[in-house]
């Protein structure tokens, strides 16, 4: 299934030689997930599976209007339900301190800013009573007209100073307009992606317990340090008074990357009723309160010489944010780092709509933007009569066009060539719509992937116990990625002991604070801290004379300085290439992905098993985005119509037939001691374009609006047939 191939290496390795005589496995070894057995046997416990004594249940009540003010809330019937202990509303809920993320200011005001916003919380002895009570709450509203539809001509559109991640709202190189006006070959196309929802398997859930002034919460999130700090701030207590635990997390895909309203509600309710409270968001409510990938409309203009060399590029994004939260999908941000082009511009235009708040979803920005850019590159390949792989190779830059800096390492061309070789791309007939197998049309497509290298400062502790065991303490979060396993490998290597002698403690805010499981930065950031702690410990250990004290030797480290000192001189990104073969049924327009193959260059891979899972998992999610995912904004009501996994379609096993992920052994000494770039997100970048390009190759029809549903393909085929006579 997977394998590694040597790439043209760019410099010597850093750090000690992995493995060696110490018994520590080489970095890259396919160590099994340490908690795998617990998970498959059901022994692993998730946030809603803790049962503190006297625990009660909470069920939120969603707003049924998109905009307005609550004029009356009738809670008598709910309170009369046997078992109902309290109904919290903006009238009686305790006041919270202000926070930047206003989606967390739950039950603080009668204002309703989007449909599905929580307007009350029913707390009851049983889950059933809470749900029943919630159904009995009646709200009256002073309704205001709502504005929920994204349109490219919306008068409210403006260019924000900053997008998500602090990126510029608009950027420019050279003089696009002039270059565009004189470009011999042009592509000018608009691509659309609907709103997408993360929908992790485990819903957002929390079990909150107050003990005097101390709050302990089991919460499903991607970073307990951030949740701890936010809760402390909201409730006006010290961070030390709050413990947030996320031992196992059933996926997040970004939607658990920041504290979400459910945990605030649970903590608030527990304090109000003086008993532990458990709140697990029903799937039907998730779509409105945990974030989504905002819909985008993206115009891409490519100007090129007849040989395909780019002369001008513009990538203009129209999207929305909510009125509650300043989150703008940075869809065009990666564009300027992709290809050598002297004149280019990226612009994001955003409008405030009365909709649920968008937020992070796996590869926010890159995932959306690269669908548009890589589809346009395919259109350019067709316009110039150049092979799509060759076109990309031809436009390979020497330095990062965006920043002018050299790349710390860049092996996109190698990924394209290696992928082409493995896929059997060579000799491909470029003509669209000519390969037929019975009632199926067959085609292939390619697209490039990119994802930036992020790294965050973290703290960690390493402890040498007299027993000969080691403990590494770092507040990482394992959201199913294998972080626990990978950190164990990194620590074992640094300590030069077998992994069995190391236990990694993570997922609790009492541990040395660490960054969120997001931005594909976990392994680099936490791993760096773990590695530094272990190396420091080893030195202390070597200096130590006599037996260890009873509580062992402990060292604490903070990587702030090291992290701050890197990354200034280079543009640092992971790259990849994805190839797809699709079949399209001429009778139904149904597209099936027969083969999907990715080759990535993402620094050193630390665990080939968990890395492979990350790559193919993200590629599957990209396939899903290409063919079936989408949330429909209902203009009449102002919410997304699909609110369960029967109607919000994500790929089933039957949709994923032959999927392969490979990677190049990439050496990059400008990263971190492990030499690792992130791998959690790059696999979803470009996948949808590779598939859409394959659909075009199969059918001759270009579907520029995702998802590529059968009805779109069928209508386009019929239209083409009509035009063709």
């Amino acid at each position, binding site marked *: 299934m997977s394998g590694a191939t040597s790439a043209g290496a760019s410099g010597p390795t850093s750090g000690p030689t992995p493995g060696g005589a110490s018994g520590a496995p080489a970095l890259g070894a396919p160590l099994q997930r340490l908690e795998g057995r617990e998970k498959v046997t059901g022994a692993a416990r998730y946030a809603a599976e803790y049962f503190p004594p006297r625990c009660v249940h909470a069920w939120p009540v*969603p707003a*049924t209007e998109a905009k307005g003010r609550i004029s009356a809330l009738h809670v008598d019937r709910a309170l009369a*339900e*046997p*078992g109902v202990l309290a109904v919290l509303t903006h009238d009686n809920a305790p006041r919270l301190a202000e926070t930047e993320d206003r989606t967390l200011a739950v039950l603080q005001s009668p204002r309703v800013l989007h449909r599905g916003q929580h307007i009350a919380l029913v707390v009851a002895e049983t889950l*059933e*009573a809470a*749900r*029943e009570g919630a*159904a009995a709450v009646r709200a009256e509203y002073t309704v205001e007209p709502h504005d929920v539809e994204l349109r490219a001509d919306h008068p409210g559109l403006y260019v924000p100073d900053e997008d998500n991640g602090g990126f510029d709202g608009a950027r420019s190189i050279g003089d696009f307009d002039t270059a565009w006006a004189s470009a011999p070959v042009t592509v000018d196309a608009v691509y659309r992606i609907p709103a997408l929802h993360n929908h992790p398997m485990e819903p957002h859930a929390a079990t909150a317990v107050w003990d005097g002034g101390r709050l302990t919460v089991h919460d499903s999130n991607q970073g307990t340090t951030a949740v701890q700090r936010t809760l402390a701030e909201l409730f006006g207590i010290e961070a030390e008074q709050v413990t947030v635990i996320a031992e196992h997390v059933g996926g997040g895909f970004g939607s658990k990357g920041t504290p979400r309203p459910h945990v605030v509600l649970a903590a608030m309710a527990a304090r109000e009723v003086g008993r532990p409270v458990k709140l697990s968001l*029903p799937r*039907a409510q998730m779509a409105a309160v945990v974030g989504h990938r905002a819909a985008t409309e993206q115009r891409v203009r490519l100007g090129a010489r007849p040989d395909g060399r780019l002369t001008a590029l513009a990538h203009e994004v129209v999207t929305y944010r909510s009125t509650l939260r300043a989150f703008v999908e940075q869809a065009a941000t990666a564009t300027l780092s992709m290809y050598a082009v002297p004149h280019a511009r990226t612009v994001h235009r955003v409008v405030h709509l009365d909709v649920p708040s968008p937020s992070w979803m796996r590869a926010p920005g890159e995932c959306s933007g690269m669908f548009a850019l890589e589809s346009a590159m395919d259109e350019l390949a067709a316009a110039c009569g150049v092979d799509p792989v060759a076109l990309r190779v031809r436009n390979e830059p020497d330095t990062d066009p965006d920043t002018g800096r050299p790349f710390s390492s860049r092996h996109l061309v190698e990924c394209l060539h290696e992928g082409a070789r493995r896929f059997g791309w060579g000799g491909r007939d470029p003509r669209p719509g000519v390969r037929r197998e019975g*009632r199926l049309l067959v085609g292939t497509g390619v697209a490039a992937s990119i994802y930036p290298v992020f790294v965050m400062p973290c703290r960690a502790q390493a402890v040498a116990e007299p027993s000969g065991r080691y403990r590494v303490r770092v507040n990482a979060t394992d959201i199913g990625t294998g972080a626990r396993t990978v950190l164990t490998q990194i620590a074992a290597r640094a300590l030069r002991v077998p992994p069995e002698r190391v236990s990694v403690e993570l997922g609790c805010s009492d541990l040395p604070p660490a960054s969120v499981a997001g931005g594909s930065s976990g392994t680099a950031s936490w791993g760096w801290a773990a590695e530094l702690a272990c190396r420091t410990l080893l030195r202390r250990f070597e200096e130590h004379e006599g037996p260890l004290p009873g509580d062992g030797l402990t060292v604490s480290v903070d990587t702030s300085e090291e992290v701050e000192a890197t990354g200034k001189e280079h543009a640092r990104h992971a790259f990849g290439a994805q190839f797809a073969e699709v079949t399209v*049924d001429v*009778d*139904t*327009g*149904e597209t*099936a992905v027969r083969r999907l193959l990715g080759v990535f260059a993402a620094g050193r891979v630390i665990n080939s098993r968990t890395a492979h899972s990350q790559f193919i998992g993200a590629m599957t999610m990209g396939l899903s985005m290409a*063919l*079936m995912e989408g949330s*429909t904004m*209902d*203009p*009449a*009501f102002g919410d997304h*119509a*699909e*609110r*369960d996994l*029967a*109607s919000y*379609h994500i*790929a*089933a*096993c*039957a*949709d994923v037939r032959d999927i392969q992920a490979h990677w190049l052994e990439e050496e990059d000494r400008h990263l971190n001691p492990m030499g690792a770039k992130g791998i959690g997100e790059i696999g979803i970048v470009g996948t949808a374009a590779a598939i859409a390009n394959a659909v075009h190759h199969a059918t001759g029809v270009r579907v520029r609006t995702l*998802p590529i*549903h*059968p*009805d779109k393909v*069928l*209508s386009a085929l*019929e239209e083409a047939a009509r035009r063709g006579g």
Partner: protein
Amino acid sequence: MRAVRYERAADASAAVAALAGSPHGRYLAGGTNLVDLMKLGVETPDLLVDITRLPHDSIETVEDGALRIGAAVRNSDLAADPVVRARWPVLSQSLLAGASGQLRNAATVGGNLLQRTRCLYFQDVGKPCNKREPGSGCPAREGVHRDLAVLGASPACIATNPSDMAVALAALDAQIHVHGPTGRRTVPLDELYRLPGGHPERDTVLEPGDLITHVELPALPEAVNSAYRKARDRASYSFALASAAAALEVREGTVHRVRLAFGAVAAKPWRAYTAEQRLTAGPATAESFARAVDAELAAAVPLRDNGYKVPLVRNLAVRVLTDLAERSREPR
């Protein structure tokens, strides 16, 4: 809290008696639809009569070669039945095209027949819906209706019947055996479901307390050569965008017997009588199939986002018929 009483019935009479006098009671079979709707607050029964232990759990060949299928038979078991696969393959195929393996293991024949529409407004108690709350309105007409009906709809409701199995049963002239408070009767499947008209709240002609005990398939020689095709958004675990069930017997290039039904286009499985009539005694060619299906679909009234269903169901039907015609030419 609203208490829900739960009773387990041992036989049909006991089940009917248990539910009699409880107009808000429901039979509980596999629960894969009913329990979901209860969680959403769409169904609010005060009594559940569990009928999974009723002795209607077998598949038997009776006199005249007909097949009697107990209403409690699980979807998986029916799909795997060797007699069904040999003599009514369209039925097995339709079942296997539906839901997921886990759901089919739990779902029963009776429950599959009486599952409710998947219209998203019907499932959201925060929104109006004439089927759920008569007189409240039908937001689907102007709203999200890509999956909804193009045939037989009314201003009051454009919901579709979601069952795959029922499409095959419609083509096969299945008879539904009902044991009700006033006795037993048989309802042809094609008359079981109602078109919405002014009363979309009533999916079927069944009365409160009516229990489905069996489904009977008459012996049909042409059913041996039958098939089901379904188009959908993903390869498994999703409802049909449109589907077609057909059985065909061709003699010397001429259609001798044909049965054809469409799924996911109306509030009932759409038996294509007009098309069947045109096809019978005509040439078994793709062109002739297409003309006949077009005649059936002339009555279609597409809305803003579901017009694709017309060419889709047409292509599916022509494809199934063409495949069956080819197969009937091959020596069996």
